[in-house]
């Protein structure tokens, strides 16, 4: 069988009914030191009114430029930061973490994989240490024998073989791809239901990237993991995730099934992102390369963000209303939605809800 004919539809399978982790109207401000005594209090408006839901065995990609708040969302979900407002629901129950014990219990279910495997592993400890700590802390292993056994099993799970050799190695003896595998194994040691992967492959070499992505895809199936996949590479979002959310300057601007979002982008920002992504097919089609972008500029300061839709200063289709208020979510059908006045102002549904519950309600409407 040749590869060319073997297409897979990981996105076809039915969506699970119940979200495992859900964020509703989450907002995060980072307070700044006041410029002047008695002056106005200032803050970085990192994430504004964001709602999303993660489902078991289902990957959701979060794309956007740096500074758009992707990482902040992941860290909020991992409860590395406190929410300014909004609520997290785990298995339908609100997450209320006051004590260290409840936080630890929460972390047993929700684990984070960081971008840079070169700095997320401790250089003075072996792989064994990195894996046995979470095993001990979360109470999965009680004796040394159990620890070693489970650590070896984890290494095999992330395809680091021979596991007996890798367990004694230090991070500097591993390549970037191998380190990221160890970081993934460490996250799996807690036996989580949710994996938050913050740009897990952007520091890796091109040829290694697919290996790690395919590993995550396999784990998603095998462990029935809910994965939040944060990336700036829109092509790998399409490859990896069933759903894609697009974020700009702390606001969610578009979301839905990956193919719909990426092949029929509606929000001008999504269109900009896609036209900027390298695409060899485009060149060979017309022989001319590098088309001009529809918009210019960079992400605005989030200390004094633009009013209304934060994309309006860069938007080629800007209207007066765009600077007045942020548009409500408009349903485009098939679970695809956007927050943009070009497509209406939330006519079909006035209340902002997480992606998936909207999907259901809209299919009910249709």
């Amino acid at each position, binding site marked *: 069988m040749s*590869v060319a004919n073997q297409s897979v539809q990981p996105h076809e399978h039915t969506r699970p009914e119940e979200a495992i982790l859900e964020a509703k109207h989450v907002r995060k401000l980072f307070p700044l030191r006041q410029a002047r005594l008695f002056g106005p209090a200032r803050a970085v408006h990192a994430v504004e009114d964001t709602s999303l839901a993660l489902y078991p065995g289902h990957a959701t990609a979060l794309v956007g430029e740096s500074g758009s708040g992707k990482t902040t969302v992941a860290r909020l979900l991992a409860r590395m930061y406190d929410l300014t407002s909004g609520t997290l629901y785990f298995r339908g129950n609100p997450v209320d973490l006051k004590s260290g014990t409840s936080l630890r219990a929460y972390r047993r279910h929700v684990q984070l994989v960081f971008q840079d495997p070169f700095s997320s592993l401790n250089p003075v400890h072996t792989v064994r240490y990195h894996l046995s700590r979470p095993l001990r802390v979360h109470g999965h292993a009680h004796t040394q024998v159990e620890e070693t056994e489970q650590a070896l099993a984890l290494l095999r799970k992330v395809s680091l073989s021979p596991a007996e050799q890798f367990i004694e190695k230090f991070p500097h003896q591993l390549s970037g791809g191998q380190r990221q595998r160890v970081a993934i194994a460490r996250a799996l040691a807690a036996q989580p239901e949710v994996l938050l992967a913050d740009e897990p492959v952007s520091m890796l070499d*091109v040829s290694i990237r697919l290996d790690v992505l395919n590993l995550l895809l396999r784990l998603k199936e095998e462990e029935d993991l809910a994965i939040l996949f944060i990336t700036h590479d829109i092509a790998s979002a*399409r490859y990896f995730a069933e759903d894609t959310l697009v974020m700009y300057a702390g606001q969610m601007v578009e979301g839905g099934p990956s193919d719909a979002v990426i092949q029929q982008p509606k929000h001008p920002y999504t269109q900009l*992102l896609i036209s*900027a992504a*390298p695409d060899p097919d*485009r060149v060979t089609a017309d022989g001319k390369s*590098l088309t001009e*972008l529809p918009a210019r500029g960079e992400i605005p300061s989030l200390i004094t963000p633009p009013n209304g839709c934060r994309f309006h200063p860069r938007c080629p289709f800007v209207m007066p209303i765009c600077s007045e208020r942020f548009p409500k979510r408009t349903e485009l059908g098939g679970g695809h939605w956007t927050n943009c006045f070009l497509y209406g102002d939330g006519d079909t549904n006035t209340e902002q809800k997480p992606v998936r519950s909207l999907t259901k309600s809209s299919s009910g409407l249709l």
Partner: protein
Amino acid sequence: MAIAVEKETLLDVRNLSVDYTAANGTVHAATNVSFTLKRGEILGLAGESGSGKSTLAYAVSRLLRPPAKIVGGEVIYYPRSRAAADAVHITEASSHLQHGKRPTDDLGETEPVDVLALTPTQLRAFRWSELSIVFQSAMNALNPVMNVGKQIMDVLKVHRPLMGPTSRKQRALELLKLVGIAPDRLNSYPHELSGGMRQRAVIAIALALSPEIIIMDEPTTALDVVVQREILTEIMRLREQLSFSVIFITHDLSLLLELADKIAIMYAGKLVETASRRDLYSHPRHPYSYGLLKSFPTINGPRRIMTGIPGSPPDLRNVPTGCAFHPRCPLAFDACRSIVPALQSSTSESPLQLVACHLYHRELSPEGPPSASDFAQKYQTLRTEREKAE
């Protein structure tokens, strides 16, 4: 290859080899690398990290320091003839660009120059006026305690001692405008500029003396996709306008397919394939090039499980015998393990597409060159085998 030097050849690199001497063995970072760069051409150099791309670029610009050592080969630079240079000056309307142009005498008229044999004085004249570099991280390339204008004017001060302060400032303003930075940013410090602006400033400095060749070492890797696209468009526009040549180093092959005229693929310190971007995209010849091309997901087309290239690049202290790629190659056969393949014309259909692979050698591989479906099939088999092993 590259024996017959054509008229418009600008840089001819022949059998260049670079070693790093280390206590635990010599690292052969580049081995017998040969390529030519034509006037106004963008040559893309792609490969994984550690494949020797940057080493090669630094060797060409003589920026390598011990323990790196150029152990063989030559780098021949063909300066533009005086008449041709003048002609360009007339077409360039701006008088300041002429100001910036180096008087060609320093390097001895228009004779070809062996860059590796230049004396320190000649090298000073050669660098920046003829060849300049844009480094990967603009954040580190710019001096944080000096404003951008001063950093541009510094170059002019050192390399153009005859230029007065007023014309220096004028040239600096002109350069900023050229790369799309507002002239009032002249007195800004690097930390006051965004990542994209900093990269533009570094490009402005590289352009200060209107060089013939600019080496760009991963100039957009640290940038966002949108900013990256803006910088690339800028580079293309400037090249049209100023007709310099670019050696563009990156690990992102998908970028080169849009940008470069010619692409050279490096693996373990050797060139394994050189081809025009069209040839490479439509029919990669080397199994490694094929694997690289299939390593990045695309926006369009059907989604399918992609394979990538199994394994990891070799340790350069201990490169596999024969073809360095053979342990990872799905099509390797006996000859690959013992005989080092030479870079040669692949097939009669695309004589300019050079490949270092025995599959295209008539005596070693009697079945003839592999087709794209052979590649796909073999990579697929390799992947299934690997999965079984796991």
